[in-house]
């Protein structure tokens, strides 16, 4: 691990140096494996936050009773090493040739692979239209906030909003999607990523709006155990 970027109080990006890294496709992830001195192992998947051509980076959200995320967000220092398997994934990926317009919906840390897609779109000077709908609990929880600013990003803050906030202030529902998602006539390609309940709600909402099911890609994140 070569460098650390603190994105929010609970979220950190780790920039990695991976000898022999073959490059990756936007949307892919890696499996991180940690081995303790006594041989104990734990493994978790993390989406690549970087675009193809950029140095590989992963963004991790610290889960309160997590086994791996506290270590990666609090203990790891530049120079530390861990095993990485990948890049992995062929379904939840976007290449400029796949076209659009792109409708990206992120719940919390689900924004990570979508940010890689947006960066790749920008780096490759693609003319494909893209819009990101990003659900976070509070302003402080928005990952990559400075970077994800502009007409093509719509935020909703579900738990608390700063005074003067004029944006959406509720969990994503079909009504919100109707106002934000590209119209069906444009032939959009959707990528939805986040906790399972977010993904199911958004995917169902997009289908209600008439989106073609095979043009809705989903990736569910979750704790691998929890309480």
């Amino acid at each position, binding site marked *: 691990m070569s460098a650390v970027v603190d994105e929010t109080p609970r979220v950190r990006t780790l920039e990695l140096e991976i000898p022999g890294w073959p490059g990756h496709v936007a949307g892919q*992830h890696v499996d991180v494996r940690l081995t303790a001195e006594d041989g104990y192992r734990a493994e978790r*998947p993390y989406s690549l936050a970087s675009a193809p051509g950029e140095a590989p980076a992963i963004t991790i959200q610290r889960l309160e009773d997590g086994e791996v995320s506290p270590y990666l967000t609090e203990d790891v220092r530049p120079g530390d090493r861990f095993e990485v398997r*990948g890049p*992995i*994934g062929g379904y939840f990926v976007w290449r400029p040739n796949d076209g659009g317009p792109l409708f990206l919906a992120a719940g919390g840390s689900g924004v990570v692979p979508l940010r890689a897609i947006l960066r790749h779109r920008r780096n490759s000077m693609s003319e494909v239209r893209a819009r990101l709908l990003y659900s976070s609990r509070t302003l402080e929880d928005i990952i990559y906030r400075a970077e994800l600013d502009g007409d093509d990003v719509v935020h909703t803050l579900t738990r608390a909003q700063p005074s003067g906030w004029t944006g959406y202030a509720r969990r994503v529902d079909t009504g919100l999607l109707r106002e934000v998602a590209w119209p069906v006539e444009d032939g959009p390609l959707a990528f939805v990523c986040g906790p*399972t309940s977010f993904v199911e709600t958004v995917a169902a909402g997009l289908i209600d709006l008439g989106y073609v099911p095979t043009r809705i890609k989903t990736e*569910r994140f979750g704790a691998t155990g929890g309480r």
Partner: protein
Amino acid sequence: MEALDGNAIGGMLYQVFGGEMTMAQAVCRRCGARAPLAECAVYLGGPGVVVRCRACHNIVMVLVEVRQMVCVDLSGLSKLEQPE
């Protein structure tokens, strides 16, 4: 606990099958529903990984890591096909 999906086990599937599998179309033996593995319901069930058909909840695949070897039971699938 809520199910994840086949994306979460992409690495394990790669290891077992020797290639990218999340786009492979799985056909449920019980109900005939067809979906990419990436869209199937995945339960990281502790002792092993259980993959279920989203339409009928039947088990389509079970993966267990036994002494660093992954054993896979595909008996819930009638077909598993890579896309063209």
